[in-house]
């Protein structure tokens, strides 16, 4: 019961946020919308017993990434409103077509009855080991996937260095 209620609320929130991202004229509004979506999705993670991931989502995504986004929006110009008109010919036509295709696909899949709705695992079957606590996730992370872990660490370092280089270079050259 609680889960269902939470799901509906958070789903609505996520969708609202997503629509805001796409529709808002002002980029700051879009950023706010994204934030709303991120929080909603984090709650949904918690509902599904993925606690570590939820925490990391809030800290990293909502905390760091969105902050970065807002910094850049401020840097570039917060009142840069986009013109409404579409300058690429037939772009809206194509997009409409794609969207329609997706809806048709969804409808066909639902109506055909050949696909089953994915059930959730029953609570009784959820084993302690799949409970997404810090200890539980840490085990595979540092044993099975340690190489990937180290690689992503390297990736982050490189990304940081690259960002500094990209942002810095221009001024020095000129």
């Amino acid at each position, binding site marked *: 019961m609680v889960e269902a209620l939470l799901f509906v609320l958070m789903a609505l929130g996520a969708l609202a946020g997503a629509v805001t991202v796409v529709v808002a004229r002002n980029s700051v509004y879009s950023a706010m919308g994204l934030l709303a979506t991120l929080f909603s999705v984090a709650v949904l993670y918690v509902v599904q017993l993925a606690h570590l991931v939820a925490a990391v989502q809030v800290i990293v995504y909502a905390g760091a990434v969105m902050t970065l986004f807002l910094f850049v929006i401020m840097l570039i110009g917060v009142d840069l409103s986009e013109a409404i008109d579409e300058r*690429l010919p037939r772009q809206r036509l*194509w*997009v409409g077509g*794609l969207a329609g295709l*997706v809806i048709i*696909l969804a409808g066909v*899949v639902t109506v055909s009855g*050949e696909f089953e709705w994915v059930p959730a695992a029953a609570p009784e079957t959820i084993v302690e080991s799949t409970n997404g606590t810090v200890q539980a996730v840490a085990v595979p992370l540092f044993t099975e996937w340690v190489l990937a872990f180290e690689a992503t660490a390297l990736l982050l370092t490189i990304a940081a260095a690259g960002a500094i280089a990209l942002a810095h270079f221009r001024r020095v050259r000129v």
Partner: protein
Amino acid sequence: MVDFLWLVIALPLAGAVLLHFFGRYMKEQLSGWLASIAIGGAFVIAVIAAIPFFQGGEHGTVILLWQWMPSIGANLEILWDPLAALMTLVVAGVGALIHVFAIGYMHGDERFPRFFTYLNLFAASMLTLVLAGNYAMLFVGWELVGLCSYLLIGYWFTRKTAAAAAKKAFVVNRIGDFGFMVALMLVFTTFGTLSYSGIFERAGAELSSGLATAIGLLILVGAAGKSAQIPLYVWLPDAMEGPTPVSALIHAATMVTAGVYVIARSAAIYDLSPVALTTVATIGAFTAIWAASIAIAQRDIKKVLAYSTVSQLGYMFLAVGTTAYVAGIFHLMTNAFFKALLFLGAGSVIHAMSDEQDMRKMGGLFKKMPTTAITMGIATLAIAGIPPLAGFWSKDEILASVYARGGWFSFLWIIGLVTALVTAFYMTRQWVLVFLGEPRWDEDKHPHESPRVMTVPLIALALLSVVGGLINTPFFTTLARFLDPSFELVDMQLPPEGGLLVTVLAGLAVLAAVGGIAVALVSYRRPRERWLDFEQGFGPLWGTWEAAYRVDDLYGATLVGPGKKAAELAAFGLDLKVIDGAVNGVGRLVRNAGAWTRTLQTGYVRNYGVLFLGGALIIVIWLVAGGM
């Protein structure tokens, strides 16, 4: 000696190759005599190899030189039988004399060695033709003599008329060759081989009359092209553009006789088709009178002789069409003698008159060039058929055989008789106009007798014209017995038995000849105005004869014009528009397709995004559909 027969072809061929590469480093005399010795050597070898035949009754041998395409019976093989021997002797003998003459005639020409290269090449080709043991080799020789004819007619190629004449000769010959090739294909499909030994013996049993007629008529087409019969004779008068030794060798004595030779050689096939034989004879007879009538009114000394050649070839065709093969070949031989003599004599006159060829501007040359005059006089009498010169015996044998055949051939006999009269007339006309009467030449000409290198061949040929006929008189049928083994498979028409009939026929022929000579002498041995009156007396007929019945114009309008239009259509309408258009169109198509495809690259990221997502969607749909 038979083992050395390959030298007969090889010697002139080697001469041609040698002169081709090294001729320009040789002096005139060296190259000329080298070529003459090459063909003279061929003659000597042929004489020695032919000795067994002189006793008569000896059959031929086949000498295999090289296996070329044995599965279809086309090898390099020589059939050495009396007929081939006779042809070789004529070609090589008369050819050698003409080579010697040409050394004097072509003196000073800047491409002197090249001329002898071609002459030797021609000799080699003609000898290949007559010595061939199968139709394939014969055809090789056939085509090669056509090529040499083209090269030699167009020898002075800087003259437009000469180049055009050479082209005309080649094209008209080609038409004949087409018929000949179809005939060879028919022969091959019937017999499975092209070799004489595989064909003639089996012809009687395996060849149906209809097929024989077809083959015979098609060979006639080829022979008519090569031997200038109706309707393919139009190239021969134009071929007089070539130097006179060329006219003498190719267009009098040898190449044009190839048609007669091939019909005689294929006698076993013709034996089965009376239709084909009658056609051959009829065409021969009509050609004879047609050409003779044209020759009456010609002004150029060589054109008279050209039409005379066509006419005499008509006689030969008449003979072989009547299956009087011996008579036909006999006339071939004697014609080679006096026709070559006539041409060489004309060459001597032209040389003396500094290349003047119009007979109305000659006259009174007897005193200036007696040797030429006398030898040409002998030749004129010979061709007219005055006994006991060579022409009388051969022409008379033809006429007698034709008469003896009877039926339709009696009509042809009358034509032959009338032609004899006309022949005597125009030949005498020519001789009188050139050598008798008052001199009519231009001021700057200084006629003189030709050097010995030119007069000696004339004298030799004159002697042959006198005694050459004696080898086949009704009293001594030496030639008939000589050639018998070559024709033992066929029925041959012989002159009638019985001395009285033969004498009467001979007398008629002589009468016709004498009559013609008389008319000519009376008409032309007078001042110029008188014989102009005589010519006008014939009215428009004279003009028609002089224009050769305007046959060339007719061909031009009906064949050449449409042909050119068709060629233009094919070149500019079809090739340029359709084929080039298709190829260019493919290029254009590719370019346009590329240009259209290029528009997909707009440079806008969002367009690419559409493409990405569209593609991903398609994959999803495919996977879903696969799962359903």
